[in-house]
């Protein structure tokens, strides 16, 4: 839990946002606002979001690479 509080203060916006979401989830579950099943599903969603971010980074890197190579081809 203390790790999550630290991460919620991260200077990387996506890390802070994800940690804040996890903390909100934990609080809502503790208050009984969401059921155990819902809690479990939403935690899985946070993991899925990390996987999605990784794929998006990969696409972005490849796009930049294609753009750079295209730039070189224009020079020749």
């Amino acid at each position, binding site marked *: 839990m203390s790790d999550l509080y630290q991460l919620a203060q991260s200077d990387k916006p996506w890390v802070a946002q994800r940690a804040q979401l996890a903390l909100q989830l934990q609080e809502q579950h503790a208050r009984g*606002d969401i059921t155990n099943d819902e809690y479990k599903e939403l935690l899985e969603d946070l993991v899925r979001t990390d996987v999605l971010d990784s794929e998006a980074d990969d696409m972005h890197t490849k796009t930049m690479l294609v753009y750079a190579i295209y730039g070189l081809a224009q020079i020749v």
Partner: protein
Amino acid sequence: MRKITVQSTVTGVVLLSLILLTLTGCSTIKDKIPSFWDDNQSRAVIDIRQSVLDLDCKQPHAPQVAVIKKHMDWLIIYSQVKDTRDVLRLVKPMNETVNDFYDRSMVKQGSEAYCNMKKKVLDAQSGTVAKAVIGRF
């Protein structure tokens, strides 16, 4: 004569290896090559994002999630036909998030808190997907 046979055999093996490498490498290479700009996919990701932003958790969830699912299904079917594998990999986690939401809502409406959290997650996911798809070269 024998030398020629050996050379032919070696050439044959090398050629066969190259063909096999090319054939087996095709799917791997296709997995690595990035897809390019596509008008239809760009439109589809905005439709998905808009339907997520329109989600009102005070209203019945099922019909609203059905709209998100329909847009998501369209993008997946289109990407499968076009064989844009990077887009399919990208949307897979979000599709699972949407399907869980849809399945739960079809059986029994989830709590408002659950819907609000689901909306926050889908907001983050759809934003990332939209930027990645529209940001392509």
